């Protein structure tokens, strides 16, 4: 029976080529739009995540702090002990970077600006160096002791250019004022608007200004073999290091209002800070840092979905009208089929199958179109647009529509078509054979 329904439906679809192409074309356009939006946002999120991880030096970040008489000192004093406690996850770790950090005032002439500065060991920061978009100067001399890589916007605020020297004024870990001098090696495209604006200096030099030994560092950052494992590995690290897990939505729901606000907005409970022995660790993952970006991208996705649904509704109206027209055109044919013993259900199924074939074909065409467009756009280099680089992979747009999204959108299209064709299909099934036979059409 299914083969009969399929054969007649397929030929009916093919019978009115122009009309079928128009309907399937509308469906293909809807599918293309939603898939391109999904693919683009998915690709952008992936690229931002990768570029964030390069800028931040890893996928999972472990910082340590000690409580000393003069206050809290951020430092990881015993790397081996830390790595030993994470040995279970050794195979998940691809590489490690070690960083110090400070928030000094950068001074050039009469101007100054507060700026986050990472002290990095450039010999282990290949990923960082390859991701930086240099707008002035070069990265050739970054390994020199007293050089700095400065965000372009900060350089503009200071009025400094590559090759010039800026002063760096900061507090040591013991709270004393200290000043150093660094030469601007390169200006890089700033990512301040996306939550990251960092300058980079040699770690040993920053350590000397902070009062740390050259080999010491404050944060151990880990690149994982699979970035998607960041949450799971982060959870494991917290368990291994005895760090409390971040509150889940369910936890927050159980908190009282004041507590929930503190948790949601990251407010410290100053009254609860008490002296502690040894090193207290904090574990953060790239996904936690990416949450605001993901939220922004989700807004885009929601807009895309809304456009998709509007297009689907318009197409659904088109399908209903077309099938009502088909019902009138095929009244006699339906009567003939019913006369020869076709049950009502089969008549209905022929109509529904036609709708499925049209929408399935349209969805397939839309997906193929997405594949072609993404392939073509993926070949174009956008190197001339530095502001875009944070969204791109090596200067190129990437698309990442997940199978789940594609399947979900296809199911939505198919369901909408069935719904739209259902009314005319039922009407066709209920058509009285005698009325159908006496039709003059």
């Amino acid at each position, binding site marked *: 029976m299914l083969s*009969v329904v399929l*054969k*007649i439906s397929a*030929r009916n679809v093919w*019978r009115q080529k122009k009309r079928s192409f128009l309907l399937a074309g509308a469906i293909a356009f809807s599918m293309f739009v939603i898939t391109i939006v999904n693919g683009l946002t998915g690709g952008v999120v992936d690229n931002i995540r990768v570029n964030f991880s390069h800028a931040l030096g890893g996928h999972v970040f472990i910082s340590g702090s000690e409580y000393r008489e003069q206050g809290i000192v951020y430092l990881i004093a015993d790397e081996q002990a830390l790595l030993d406690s994470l040995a279970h996850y050794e195979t998940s770790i691809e590489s490690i970077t070690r960083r110090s950090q400070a928030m000094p005032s950068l001074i050039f002439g009469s101007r100054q600006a507060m700026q986050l500065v990472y002290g990095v060991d450039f010999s282990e920061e290949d990923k960082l160096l390859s991701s930086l978009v240099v707008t002035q100067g070069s990265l050739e001399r970054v390994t020199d002791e007293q050089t700095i890589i400065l965000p372009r916007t900060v350089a503009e605020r200071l009025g400094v250019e590559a090759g010039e020297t800026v002063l760096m004024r900061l507090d040591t870990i013991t709270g004393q004022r200290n000043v150093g001098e660094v030469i601007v090696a390169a200006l890089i495209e700033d990512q301040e608007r996306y939550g990251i604006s960092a300058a980079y200096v040699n770690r040993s030099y920053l350590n000397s200004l902070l009062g740390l030994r050259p080999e010491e560092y404050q944060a151990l950052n880990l690149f994982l073999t699979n970035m998607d494992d960041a949450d799971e590995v982060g959870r494991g690290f917290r368990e291994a290091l005895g760090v409390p897990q971040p509150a889940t939505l369910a936890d927050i729901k159980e908190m009282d209002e004041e507590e929930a606000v503190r948790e949601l907005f990251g407010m410290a409970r100053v009254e609860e800070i008490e002296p502690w022995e040894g090193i207290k660790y904090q574990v953060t993952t790239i996904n936690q840092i990416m949450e605001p970006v993901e939220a922004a991208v989700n807004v885009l996705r929601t807009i895309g979905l809304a456009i998709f649904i509007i297009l689907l509704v318009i197409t659904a109206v088109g399908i209903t009208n077309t099938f009502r027209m088909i019902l009138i055109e095929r009244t006699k044919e339906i009567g*003939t*089929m*019913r006369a*020869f013993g076709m049950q009502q259900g*089969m008549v209905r199924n022929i109509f529904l199958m036609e709708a499925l074939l049209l929408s399935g074909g349209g969805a397939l065409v839309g997906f193929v179109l997405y594949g072609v467009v993404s392939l073509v756009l993926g070949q174009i280099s956008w190197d001339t647009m530095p502001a875009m680089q944070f969204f791109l992979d090596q200067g190129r747009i990437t698309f990442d529509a997940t199978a789940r999204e594609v399947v979900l959108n296809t199911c939505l299209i198919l369901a909408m078509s069935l719904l739209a064709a259902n009314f005319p299909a039922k009407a066709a099934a209920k058509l009285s054979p005698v009325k159908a036979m006496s039709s003059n059409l």
Partner: protein
Amino acid sequence: MAIIELTDVRKVYTLGKTEVHALKGVSFEIASGEFASLIGPSGSGKSTILNLIGCIDQPTSGVVRINGTATNGMNDRELTTLRHQTLGFIFQSFNLIPVLNVYENIEFPLLLGKTAVPKAEVHDWITYLVEQVGLQDHIKHRPNELSGGQRQRVAIARALVTRPAIVLADEPTANLDSKTGQTILELMKKMNEELNTTFIFSTHDSTIVGLTDHVIRLLDGEVVEETFQGRAAAEARS
């Protein structure tokens, strides 16, 4: 034995506020294997009777019995099954399925059945019917590639493919020229004799009545004359 039995059948159509009495107490029987014709002018009730016998319409009152089973009170599913198992149809304007070729159009009613017939058997039977109606060279042609006479031959083969006990033909020659119409009637007669299928056709052309065994003449929704000739007359006498 009567394969079709109509007893005091009435059919009233309502057109707005007007009631049209299409049939006014029609009663007759048709025996198995007859080549019967319903004749009469337009509006005499020929098509209405064929629709009632064909189970695509129900009488307002009276009883229609097909193979001894009263069709009154049957639901749509039962009527559809009865049509599929017992009846074949030939229409004035052929009513072939435009998206199917000659072979597929003939095969179509077989595909609606619940019992699976071996493919080879189906193929042999359809090939036999195609040869009988002389369309072996047009088997892959679509209806729009055939002449009127050829289309009606396909319709005859399609009507016979399920080996129905009864074939109903509603003015089968009305859209054909007289020579092709004559050929089609001879073909129907031949199939009637070879397969012993009961044929009932409506016509207002009294010249073709000579071919039939049993003639039911209608006027204004009533049977005004019923005559038997040839085989039916002999059987009636015996």
